[in-house]
């Protein structure tokens, strides 16, 4: 979940135990082993070993039959490069990555600024701020599968919410088969991602703005700074780190998108591969077609994609002591 280990680590320097205590603690090896062993054993069985195996399996043609994994080198990866459905998946994940985090952060920042700085005379929070925050946070409480089922209904062309509302306000012409038109389906999925993510980041940004010393905003106000200038010159630079963290998290979500696509879309992944994502390709290749070696190669590709994204998104932050 979190990618912020090192910096936070450095910031929270360990309190060195007093000498007397250290002597005592050093004798607790039995305790140390007993305390770590259960978690460590589970970790090795269910996490370390599967990840290690995945890298090896990606170099084989294994199809699930015990002992029948032939080493094929990088053949799987060469095949991936020509697999048009997987290339569609990469393209769709990249499109999500390009648009979804930016939109979510944009709306989240806007709402957070309104809530924190939108009160009379621009100094304080807006009336009813707490109410808005509670409502905006609702989607965060719902599991992604439930969100997908809910929006699957809402997008239903005949009796769904969206078309129902459009027809009720006389915009019949805008009613669509949202998830059945190749040009619309991915954006329909993206809208759901934004819908469910905005509240969380709004609360995060709102807390961050709240933590900025009020004197800074006072000074800007006295100097005649308008709302927009204050936001661009003060709020945004001071929230830089929070925005960056949000971008990394949302990017991970955009590179996943599995549950929404698998539950909501036709196919799933359709129409015509227009909502295919890498996770879905992997899932289908492994658990429907039984091509476990090839699926593992997809997993490795997804891993490197995520890694490159995280490194790029966090670049330039090496010298900072604190990220979040």
């Amino acid at each position, binding site marked *: 979940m979190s990618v912020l280990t090192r910096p936070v680590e450095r910031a929270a320097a360990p309190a060195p135990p007093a000498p007397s205590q250290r002597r005592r603690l*050093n004798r607790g090896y039995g305790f*140390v082993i007993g305390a770590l062993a259960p*978690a460590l054993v589970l970790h090795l069985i269910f996490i370390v070993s599967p990840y290690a195996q995945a890298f090896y399996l990606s170099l084989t043609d294994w199809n699930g039959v015990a002992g029948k994994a032939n080493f094929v080198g990088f053949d799987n990866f060469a095949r991936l490069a020509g697999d048009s459905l997987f290339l569609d998946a990469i393209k769709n994940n990249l499109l999500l990555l390009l648009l979804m985090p930016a939109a979510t952060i944009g709306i989240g920042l806007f709402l957070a600024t309104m809530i924190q700085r939108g009160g009379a005379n621009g100094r304080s929070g807006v009336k009813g701020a707490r109410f808005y925050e509670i409502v905006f946070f609702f989607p965060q409480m719902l599991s992604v599968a439930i969100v997908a089922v809910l929006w699957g209904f*809402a997008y239903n062309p005949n009796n769904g919410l969206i078309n129902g509302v459009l027809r009720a306000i006389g915009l019949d012409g805008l009613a669509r088969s949202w998830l059945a038109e190749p040009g619309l389906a991915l954006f329909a999925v993206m809208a759901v991602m934004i819908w469910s993510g905005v509240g969380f980041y709004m609360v995060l940004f709102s807390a961050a703005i709240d933590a900025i010393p009020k004197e800074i905003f006072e000074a800007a106000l006295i100097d005649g700074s308008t709302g927009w200038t204050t936001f661009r010159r003060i709020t945004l630079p001071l929230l830089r780190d929070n925005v960056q963290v949000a971008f990394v998290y949302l990017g991970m979500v955009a590179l996943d998108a599995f549950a929404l696509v698998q*539950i909501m879309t036709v196919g799933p992944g359709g129409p015509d591969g227009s909502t295919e994502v890498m*996770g879905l390709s992997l899932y289908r290749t492994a658990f429907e077609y039984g091509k476990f070696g090839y699926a*593992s190669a997809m997993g490795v590709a997804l891993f490197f994609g995520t890694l490159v994204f995280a490194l790029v998104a966090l670049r330039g932050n090496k010298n900072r002591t604190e990220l979040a």
Partner: protein
Amino acid sequence: MKRFPLHIALGFWAIVTAFPLLWAVTSSVKSDTEILSSPWTVPERPRWENFGRAWNEASIGQYFLNSVIVVGGALFLTMLLGGIAAYTLARYRFPGNRFVYYLFVTSQFFPTFLALVPLFFTVEQMGLLGTKLGLILVYATFATPFTIFFLHAFFRTLPSAIAEAAFIDGCTHWGVFFRVMLPMARPGLVSVAIFNFLGLWNQYLLPLVLNPDPENYVLAQGLAALSTSQGYQSDWSGLFAGLTIAMLPVLLAYVCFQRYIQAGATAGAVK
């Protein structure tokens, strides 16, 4: 009056957020005909029987119970094992401490998809595929790295004077952990427990792969299966009732404890 446009913007997003939820709840007490003919009006009379049908015939009750058992068990296990591992790594010096810490913590970088295939076969070979125990163990293991990461920082900030006093009074290492450090760490434990609960309740990919038996479906999985299975498409009202059963308890709990829950949910991103 000057604040009016602002409330329009905020109110607009509040409606965008809340309206689909209200719509689902309203639809859950409608008849199928009402859902099909007038998707967004209120029903003539509330049909509570939809809930009974969803709970029993559509097995939502069973799925709900399965979720509670699996998430509850995994939460307990990850808090216990993760908590004690975090404490040990934070406050004891021994060779390999750093290595073990990073072995746990770096695994959060890896997408779950990468582990999926070998994980499936590992669980299968252990005879745990489709069992609650298997799901509990895997859930707990996947939640433990973050638990350790978060509580590690927390245990470091706790003063050592009280622990020292307890040692002098003859308390064992286990005693110091369970009687002294764990109670002192309560705020951190609550935050990370809420975070873990939401994360585990949210799980979809792991049960989809590791829990193929419909009798053992967890709530998210069962609901998704119902909504995509053709056989159930005719019972719209039952499906909406199932959706409402899945949504409402969590939302109500949130409204009651929102400050704790917001703090817990954002635990991963703010320190």
